[in-house]
Each structure stands twice: as structure tokens, then as C-alpha cells.
């Protein structure tokens, strides 16, 4: 999850006005100017890919949550049923993206699904001994696998900044 583009653009404007323009030759404005360059590349990537990334991650989380709940139900352990039911309800009531797939609605949906994933993971951990090793391993790996795929999707949006970061150390 990344800070919003609006907030980053606002910071760029403030930095240009208060730090860079008043003194173009000092180390801090030069450094900030380079950071702004890297952020501009990042924002260009986000304008192209971010909504699609969020749609994919949200669908992935929905599917993973359903699969994990289904697997946990299949072990028929009574003690976890109330919590499973509660999480199912939360999933139903969670904010959904609007028909325009606006950034705000996608991030609201994303945050709600992240919260449910975390609660589900806590339940899996807490029930380790009662659900059995096989169900524990499978559900844990499903949730971790989903987190991994989300990290890989987000990585596409920050890759240019990683390259820039490596070059920062040789600039100083």
C-alpha cells in the first residue's frame, strides 16, 4: 500500500517552493530534486498500472479468504465456527469498489480485505493444534502466498525507485 499520488504531488510542490527554488546550489535542495525525479517516474507508473494492481489484489484476497474459510470449515472444529462466521459476515459487509473502480473505492476495499486476511491468519495460528497440521499448513500457505503475490504486484510500481536508490549512494 502506497501513499496517495495527491499527497506525493503536494509534497513535491511544497519542496519545490520552500526548499529547491530558494537555494538551488545547496546539498539538501539538490538531493530533494533528485528524489522528486524518482517520484515523478514512480507516479507515472502508478497512473498507468495502480488501479489494475488494486483490482487484481482485491480479487486475489477475496478468493484466498473464501478458500481459507472453506478449508477451515471442512475440518469441522466447533470451537472456530463462531469466528469463521464472524469473518464471513465482515467479508460480506466490507466496502466494495464502485462501478468506476475509483482509486478511493479500491483502496477502501483493499484495506477491508487486508484486515480480514490478518484476522483469518490470527485464527489459523490460534487454532494450530485443533485444526491439525495439514489444514494449518495449507491455510497458512494460502494466506502467505496471497501476501507474496500482492508484494510482487506492488513491486512493479516501485521498481524504478529501487534502481534510483542504488544510485543514490554513488551520488553523495
Amino acid at each position, binding site marked *: *500500500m*502506497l*501513499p*496517495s499520488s495527491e*499527497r*506525493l504531488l*503536494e*509534497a*513535491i510542490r*511544497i*519542496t519545490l517552493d520552500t526548499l529547491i527554488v530558494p537555494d538551488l546550489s*545547496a*546539498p*539538501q535542495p*539538490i*538531493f*530533494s530534486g533528485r*528524489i*522528486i525525479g*524518482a*517520484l515523478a517516474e*514512480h507516479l507515472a507508473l502508478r497512473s498507468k498500472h495502480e488501479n489494475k494492481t488494486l483490482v487484481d489484489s482485491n480479487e486475489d484476497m477475496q478468493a484466498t479468504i473464501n478458500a481459507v474459510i472453506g478449508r477451515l470449515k471442512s475440518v469441522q472444529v466447533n470451537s472456530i465456527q463462531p469466528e469463521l462466521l464472524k469473518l464471513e459476515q465482515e467479508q460480506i459487509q466490507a466496502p466494495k469498489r464502485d462501478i468506476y473502480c475509483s482509486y478511493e473505492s479500491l483502496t477502501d476495499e483493499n*484495506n477491508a480485505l*487486508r*484486515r480480514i*486476511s*490478518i484476522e483469518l*491468519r*490470527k485464527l489459523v*495460528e490460534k487454532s494450530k493444534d485443533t485444526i491439525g497440521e495439514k489444514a494449518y*499448513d495449507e491455510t497458512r*500457505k*494460502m*494466506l*502467505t*502466498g*496471497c*501476501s*507474496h503475490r*500482492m*508484494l*510482487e504486484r*506492488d*513491486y512493479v*510500481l*516501485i521498481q524504478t*525507485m*529501487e534502481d534510483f*536508490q*542504488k544510485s*543514490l*549512494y*554513488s551520488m*553523495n
Partner: protein
Amino acid sequence: MKEKIEAYLQSKNPTAQVLKATVLAGGASGLTVLVDLKWVEKNKEEQLGMVFKIHQAAGTLSDASDQMAEFEILKALMDTDIKTPKVYWAENDKKWLGDQFYVMERLPGTTSSTAFRKDPELRKTLARQLVENMAKIHLVDIKKLAFLGIPTSSVDCAQREIAKWEELYRAHSVFPDPAFEEVVLWLKANKPTDVARISLLWGDPGPGNFMYEGNRLTGCIDWEMAHIGDPMDEIGMFLGKCETTETLMTTEEFYQYYEEYSGIKINQKSIDYYRALWNFRLAVITTIALNEFVSGNTSSVFSGYSGALFGTLEMRKAFSKIQILEEGKFYATV
């Protein structure tokens, strides 16, 4: 800033005159100001360089670092032959510069990798000196550094660090992060149990945090994450840092020099663990930056940049390391 620093210095020596004050870029825990000054000492005018490290409430690491502790560590190390800057004064009184700060000598040289990147011989010479200093740090008598908190057992070395950084994360988290929760669970379940020696750790070793002039290392700087713990933690940090900065030496060279200078045996399993812990720490630092940024406490583009970049990057690295350590069983790949 120049006038305020001059007023402070004049409280120490009424003849002090600041010639130049330069704010350094990119500091994570506060402002670093390089100061050129002159004053009369024992009837003789002298010019010297000092560094002011000023805490800032809205700094990325401000909640994770204790500048007064950093000052005390550097003060304690002045009695050793470890290359560190000499410290002069620490001030808690905010009347001078608006926040607490300490003052140290300005070491000669640079932190830039430009020179040694082009010169393999220089790189090797500096690498050896760096490892020698790291080894000496790990052999320091920790009794006089008890204010940092001393782990009570081998497992407590990692436990204390996880607890400290997890608490910071919980206090600053701005969005729910399942990846972070997964890494915390794994770190807690796999703490190293075999710690050869409990040592002072520099806390942020490696390229960018040591100064050199010519072929001589002049000082180890940036002690804000120093703590007492497992030396393998430091080695994990060092190798982790070299991933994103500069490779000073091969891992094999590092291990050879380190064992030679410290007499402490390398524990690869622990190092692999601490490399993931290093990614976890960086992700927490990012969380603090992100919180400061999205809540409007700072409009620093560096905080925005850090917040956008490092959370995902460090968690991705931690996942990849843990997947290797767990022989492909950490996350499902389909």
C-alpha cells in the same frame, strides 16, 4: 540556524564564530549540520569543524532513536581505539535549537563510494579496516553500556529487537499489512538460540556510514540504532545493507576478516535469520516515515519517497529470504 548555533557555541567559548553551517541531506532521524568555526583557545585562534546532530520530532527515525544514548555510546567509545568521532556536548535544553542535540568533531574525509568503487585496492584496504572496527566494537566491554539494556539470554537478543520494532510498528501503522504480520510471526517462531557472545552493535554498519580519507578509515558514524545483541545481527545488517548500497567485499572475504579480527565464529544460520530481521526493521522505519507523511506532519519528499518505496521492497526481500530458509515452504507459489 547559523546564528542559533553560534549563540550556543559562544556559551561554551565567547570567542566562537561560525564561518559556515551546512544542513546535510537525507538524514532519517533529524538534522545533521556541518559547522565550520573559529575560536580562541589558550590565546591561540584555531579553526575547526563540528557536526551538530539535532533531533526532530518529525524525523523518520525520531521515535526509534535516542540521541542522548547515541552521545553516551560515542563518549564511552572515546576510551577505545575504535574509529569514532570525538563528542563534545549534549543538550536537552530546547531553548538553543528547538530540540535536543549533541555536538561532535567533524571527521576528515567522505562517505561517498565514488573513490573505492573505481579502485579495487582501496576497496580492499577500507573493507579490512571496516571489519576490524566492527570486530573491535563487538569486543567492547558492555558493562559500561548497561543503559542500552542487556539481553538476559541468547533468545532475548532477537526477542528484544522484535519487541522494540513491533511496538513501533503498532504505534505508527497506517494500513493493515498481512505481509508484515506474517514476517513478525516467523521471526518470533525462529529466534536464534545459539549466541556466542552478547556485544555492543553499531546498528547501521556499512557503506554510507563510515568516513574515509585517502586509504584510511577515519570513523564509524550514525549510531542511532546501536544496541546490545548478537554480533550475527550486525553481520546480517551489514550484508543486508550491501544489497542496496555498495558491495565492499565478498561475503567470504567479510567472514574471513571478521573471524580473524574478532575470534567470534560465524554462524550462518543466525546471519540468515538476522538478514530477514534487518528487512523487518527497515519496513518499520518506513512505516514511521509513511505515518508522518500521510498525517501531514511532514511534507518532506524524502519521507514520501521512503514511505512509497521501502515498505514493499523490504517485505518482499524478507519473504524471499524466509522462503529460502524454509526450503520453499513459507508461501504457496501457485
